[in-house]
């Protein structure tokens, strides 16, 4: 995690990966870049922890992968969201909204 950037809460990495892939197929490096981009450069995924996360999501059937040629003409493994992954993202987003709302309510309590 880069100094000054927000740390990721436990369990949010999976949701962010799914969200990044909902915008289109990407390789692992690109997923990290896209998460930074869509969070306005506020969130930085620890590069090493990204890959076990990707393999875990693929194992659960939420994402799929295939080897292809990257933008710099190198072989790279590209990930894409599956139908069950898209459903899971909706569930995760709803859970997150509920959790964030409850946390804010608790913080505002006087």
């Amino acid at each position, binding site marked *: 995690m880069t100094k000054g950037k927000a740390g990721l809460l436990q369990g949010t990495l999976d949701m962010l990966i799914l969200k990044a892939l909902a915008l289109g197929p990407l*390789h*692992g*490096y690109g997923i990290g870049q896209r998460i930074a981009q869509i969070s306005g450069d506020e969130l930085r995924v*620890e*590069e*090493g*922890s990204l*890959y*076990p996360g990707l*393999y*875990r999501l*693929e*194992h659960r*059937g939420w994402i*799929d992968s295939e080897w292809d040629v*990257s933008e*710099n003409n*190198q*072989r*790279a*493994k590209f990930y894409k969201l*599956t139908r069950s992954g898209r459903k899971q993202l909706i569930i995760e987003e709803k859970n997150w909204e509920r959790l964030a709302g409850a946390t804010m309510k608790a913080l505002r309590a006087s």
Partner: protein
Amino acid sequence: MSRVKATVNFIHAWQHADEIADEVDAELCFHLQMRTSANIAEGMTPDEAQLAAWQSFGDFDRIKLSCCEIRRGLPFNMKPLRMGLYIAIACLAGGFALVAVNLPHHNLFGVLWQLAAIAVLMCSFLVGRRKQ
């Protein structure tokens, strides 16, 4: 990924463990190359860029191992299978015990049968303990 594809991947991962390790290696190396290129584009020297890429990535071998282990993981939930096994062994132990009680205890066959019943019962306890 369908359940069938997950099962095929699981079998493939066990049959071709080296291939999977090479695949993970290639993927992680691609990441490091991309990070190195980005660092060079930001003004670092190639050596500095490579070093920074490795440092920001973390423990390469540990991450690679972790990815390989996930690939080799079972493609289904083990709990129902273990529960089924537990019930089957418990039924078997009950059957063995029922027959053992009704057998004469003064011959070798009867004693062996009782020992088998005890062994099956112990298996059921062991499976039950693992379940918890």
